[in-house]
Every structure is written in structure tokens, then in C-alpha cells.
């Protein structure tokens, strides 16, 4: 009986270790991490200062199906763009904009291993507002910070399979 | 494999809100939810035969709550179809609005509904259940659910129109 249990224990440990090495990480997107940090730091009472709109992969599919069934000419461009977008989160803050802008920038810099500015030119000396996360050669996540003076601060967070053609289509919008 | 923590315990808040809506007492509602969960768990051998564990649990919860209040003969609750005549501190909607937060006025209105209307509205407007699901929980036909909900909403609408008539 002892031998049996030891064997089981050993198999379990080996299995666990194997799964650790082989499994892909399940990670959170940037805005989810930001919201979690903000809740930890400021509590959940500040929900009237900021909000987050989430569009999941299944909703993206529904949207695409809806567009395809409508067959509208105006929507051709978005029909080319949407298949590259797996999910989207839109974080917006209307009060204490500095606080949230700083929190977002801090989080990006803290995760420098994951997020890099998507610089068009090294010569431009501006605060980067577009950041990307790559996996292998692909861009899998894009973050855009958008601030309108002291009115409003937005973080648009897209995950998906973002290729050159995707960005070129976006630039035409 | 069915697990209490993952399959049954998560229903607790929905059950609590329904029990509270009927008994209007937090401690009673908590006891009822506990009793419901234990009973549902004890019937887990038959889960395969049940269409919806949630609807089944809500039914048990409601029945326990109804038993409880009929035992208690609570003044807050009336089992027949009449509206709760318990006078409020404020005797007119106008005064109620002036004295209290609007949101608690609506909640008080909700609590005044006869039990069936309250339960239907709780399950529809707060829990977002379909007519079919509500019918399953209450043992009604879908048509009966719709009629009951209609009465509840019409009452509330009338109360809102009374505010209008006071010129607010």
C-alpha cells in the first residue's frame, strides 16, 4: 500500500511540474491590471470617477456577424479591422485625471518587460501614447492613452493579432 | 462531480435577495437561505433530473420564506392580493419624497406589493430572469407571470404619476 501511494504522489508531482513548464501563462490585459491596482490603492468607492467598458471576444464575433449580415458598404473598413481585434477595454476617467494618467503610465513603466512604446521615430521627443506588447514577432496587445486636457482621460486597450495591414487600415480611419 | 462550494453556494446572494424581499428581515432571510442551501445539497443525488438547480433553489427558498411569514403572522406582509396598507411616516408621495431619498421611496413601494407581484418583479427586474424561468420558480404559467408583473408595474407607474400630479 505504501508503494502505491508513493508512486501516485510521485506521478502527481511530475505531472504538476510538466504542466508548469508547458503551460502558457493566462494573463490579464493592461486595463484589468490597472483597475485592480486602482481598487487596491483607492478602494472601490471611487467608481464614480472612472469606468470601464469591456467588449469580449464573443461580443466581437457577434458584432462581425451582424455587420456581415447587414452587408452595408459603409462598414467595409471596420469589417477589415475587426477580425484582428480579439477584445477591447476602454477605461475612462472624468475626475482626478492626473491621478489616473499617472497610475497608467506608472503601470506601463513598471511592466517594461511586457509593454514597450510603439515609437514611430526615435527623434520625436514626446511622451509615448501608444504602447504595445509583443509575443514572438506578433503584437498581441495595444494600449493607447488619450488625454483631453483636464476633461477626460482614456485608456484604450486592444488584444488580438495586430499586423502591419491592421495598423495601416486603422490609420485610414 | 457536483461540489457544494462551486455549484450550490454561489446561489446564496440571489436566494438572499428573494428571501429578504418576502420576509423584510435580514436575520430571517439569512436563516432561510442557509436552510435552502442545506436542503438543496441533500437532494444532490437527484440533480440530473432537475432542469435548473437555480430555479429549484429559488422555489425552495420562496416556499420556506412564505412558510416563515405565515408562521410569524407578520404585519409587514400580506399573502392575499391586496396592497400593504401599513401607513408610512409620510402619508403622501410628495411628503415621502421630501423626507427621504428617492431610491428608498421606490424600494418601499416595491415592498408594499403583494407577495406574488413582489417575487415576480424581484426575479425579473433585479435578477433579470426570463418569464419561463420565473414561471418555473413560482409554479405559474408564463402568461400568469406576465399578468402578475403587469399588475406590479402598473401600480408602480400609477404611484409615479401621482408625483407628476403634484407638479414635481
Amino acid at each position, binding site marked *: *500500500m*505504501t508503494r502505491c501511494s*508513493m508512486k501516485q*504522489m510521485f506521478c502527481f*508531482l511530475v505531472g*504538476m511540474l510538466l504542466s508548469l513548464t508547458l503551460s*502558457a*501563462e493566462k*494573463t490579464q490585459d493592461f486595463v484589468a491590471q490597472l483597475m485592480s491596482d486602482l481598487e487596491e490603492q483607492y478602494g472601490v468607492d471611487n467608481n464614480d470617477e472612472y469606468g*470601464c467598458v469591456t*467588449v*469580449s471576444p*464573443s*461580443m466581437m464575433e*457577434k*458584432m462581425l456577424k*451582424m*455587420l456581415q449580415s447587414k452587408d452595408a458598404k459603409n462598414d467595409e473598413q*471596420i469589417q477589415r479591422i475587426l477580425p484582428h*481585434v480579439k477584445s*477591447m477595454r*476602454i477605461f475612462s476617467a472624468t475626475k482626478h485625471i492626473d491621478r489616473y494618467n499617472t497610475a497608467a503610465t506608472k503601470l506601463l513603466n513598471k511592466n517594461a518587460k*511586457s509593454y514597450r512604446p*510603439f*515609437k*514611430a521615430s526615435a527623434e520625436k521627443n514626446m511622451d*509615448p*501614447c*501608444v504602447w504595445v506588447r509583443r*509575443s514572438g514577432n506578433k*503584437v498581441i496587445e495595444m494600449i*493607447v492613452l488619450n488625454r483631453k486636457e483636464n476633461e477626460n482621460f482614456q485608456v*484604450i486597450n*486592444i488584444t488580438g493579432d495586430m*499586423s*502591419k495591414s491592421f*495598423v*495601416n487600415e*486603422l*490609420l*485610414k480611419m | 462531480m457536483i461540489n457544494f*462550494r462551486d455549484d450550490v*453556494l454561489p446561489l*446564496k*446572494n440571489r436566494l*438572499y*435577495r428573494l428571501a429578504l424581499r418576502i420576509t423584510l428581515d435580514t436575520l430571517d432571510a439569512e436563516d432561510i437561505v*442557509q436552510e435552502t442551501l*442545506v436542503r438543496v445539497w441533500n437532494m444532490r443525488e437527484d440533480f440530473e433530473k432537475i432542469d435548473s438547480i437555480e430555479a429549484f433553489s429559488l422555489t425552495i427558498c420562496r416556499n420556506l420564506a412564505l412558510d416563515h411569514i405565515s408562521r410569524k403572522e407578520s404585519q409587514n406582509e400580506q399573502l392575499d392580493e391586496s396592497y400593504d396598507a401599513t401607513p408610512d411616516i409620510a402619508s403622501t408621495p410628495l411628503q415621502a419624497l421630501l423626507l427621504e431619498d*428617492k*431610491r428608498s*421611496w*421606490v424600494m418601499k413601494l416595491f415592498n408594499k406589493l403583494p407577495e406574488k407581484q413582489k417575487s415576480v418583479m424581484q426575479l425579473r*427586474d*433585479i435578477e*433579470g430572469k426570463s418569464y419561463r424561468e420565473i414561471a418555473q420558480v413560482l409554479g405559474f404559467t408564463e402568461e400568469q407571470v406576465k399578468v402578475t408583473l*403587469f399588475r406590479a*408595474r402598473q401600480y*408602480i*407607474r400609477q404611484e409615479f404619476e401621482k408625483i407628476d400630479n403634484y407638479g414635481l
Partner: protein
Amino acid sequence: MDYKYIEQLLERYWQCQTSVQEERILRDFFSQKEVPTHLQRYCALFALEKDEEELHLGADFDRKVLSRIEEPVVKARRNTIHFRLAPFYRAAAIVAVVLCLGLAAQHSFQNDTQKPGVSYNYAGYQDTYSDPQVALDQVSSALKTVSHGLRESGLHNVDSALVDGSNDDKM
């Protein structure tokens, strides 16, 4: 802004002709900060769902009910086996911890591009809107902002950007 759609929905709501999704649209509308004056009195009614979210049973309740559910374990027998195998479990646990630490260290020194494959926890995503049309409006507007952001950073065409030096479609 034309509130006719909302007014029509509201009328259908009173007649119990609205679907669950349409009722959600009403709830979303009335939870906004700017609701027209003639409709403001209904905000309280459609806020009921949100107010009810505060009603919940916490960890105390969980403990109470779990103590009623959990059957007493026949501990005596298990203890004997556990006791006998303790040294083996201990040894195996130490090995496991050392290996895990090693793996963790390896992971943290790699950057994302070397890691096997990053995948997102999409199962945890809760859609804000249930109507694809409403979601699409939000997404289009956001994509236009992204486009603007890209142009602001000086990007007019991807091929002119400093990329990883590949000729294919990948960036």
C-alpha cells in the same frame, strides 16, 4: 438628442412587452449621469438592480453553512497512513519546491518574447453591453481614437516605422 426610443421602450416596459435585453438598455440609460429632466424620476426605479447588489452574504455565512454541510471525516484511519508516509511526502515536497523555484526564476528572467505563449484570460471578460450595435458604436469610436493616437505619434504608414526589421506583415 432624441429620447423617443427610450420613451417607447419605457411605454413597452410598463406593458411588460420588453425583453430582458431591452430592460438592460433602460437600466444602462437611467444609470447615466445625464438623464433628461422629464425622465429623471425613473432613475430610482431602474437603479434597483444596482442597489440590490449591495445585499449579499459574506464569509461568515459561508462558514456557518459549510459547517452544516461538511461531514465529519473519519480521521483516525487517514492519520495512520499519513503518519507513515510523512517522510516521503516531505522529501517529495522539498524536491518540488526547489524545482518550482528554479522554474520561476527562469520565467522571471525571460522577457515576453521568449516565453512559450501569452494567452489572455478571456473567460473572465464581462461584456458591458449586451446589444452588439451599441458595442460596435463604442468600438468604432475607440478605434478612431486609436487611429488618431497613432497619427499623433508620427505614424503615417507602418513601413516607415522603426519596426523589428522584417519584410512580412508582422510588426
